[in-house]
């Protein structure tokens, strides 16, 4: 498995737990009390920082498992990387547009922040799934 494919598996294995932990901490509050009283800032920071730290750690482990391939990136890797990023960016843009509309309609900060957060996580996941699919199936950009 190419290092960049491993790196994208790391994103999936890290992003899904980060999202689930955040949801487990916040969703019960949303269902049980007014939005203004929901404590979401710390869980969101915990999820974002945890995602970044675990992603770095996962990449270090992936690189250590096969040091010879860790620094090798060829044209196909670059093309797959760019393709996956372009696909994933659509969800990040969608989250940003939703956040913009929420801000225009004076929605609570909770909803604005969560639209951006979920757009970012979902975009990262879609990007990684797209790249992994490209590594396993036919891939041609022209």
């Amino acid at each position, binding site marked *: *498995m*190419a290092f960049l*494919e491993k790196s994208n598996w790391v994103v999936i294995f890290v992003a899904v737990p980060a999202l689930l932990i955040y949801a487990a901490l916040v969703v019960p509050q949303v269902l049980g009390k007014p939005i203004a009283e929901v404590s979401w800032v710390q869980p969101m920071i915990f999820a974002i920082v945890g995602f970044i730290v675990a992603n770095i750690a996962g990449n270090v482990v992936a690189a250590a498992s096969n040091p010879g391939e860790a620094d090798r990136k*060829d*044209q*196909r*890797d670059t093309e797959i990387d760019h393709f996956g990023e372009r696909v994933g960016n659509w969800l990040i843009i969608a989250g940003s547009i939703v956040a913009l509309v929420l801000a225009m309609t004076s929605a609570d900060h909770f909803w604005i922040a969560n639209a951006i957060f979920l757009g970012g996580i979902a975009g990262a996941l879609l990007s990684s799934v797209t790249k992994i699919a490209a590594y396993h199936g*036919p*891939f*041609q950009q022209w």
Partner: protein
Amino acid sequence: MVKPTRVTNSIRALRFANGEMTQADLADRIGVTRQTIIAIEQGKYSPSLEVAFQIARVLRVRLDEAFGYPDEQG
């Protein structure tokens, strides 16, 4: 955007004709990953012209001996 390539190749046979060269050896000699060589051999990815020339050179054949492009089927 993501479609199978119509470019065919004889890389596998040519590797064996060149002292049973492994995919890893070929990848090392042209500076790509072994996974890319596998994808090219399986017709899942067509390389750039530059990589195609490098592959042909390492396998000591002309470009059109390593790669082919079939005529349009009626």
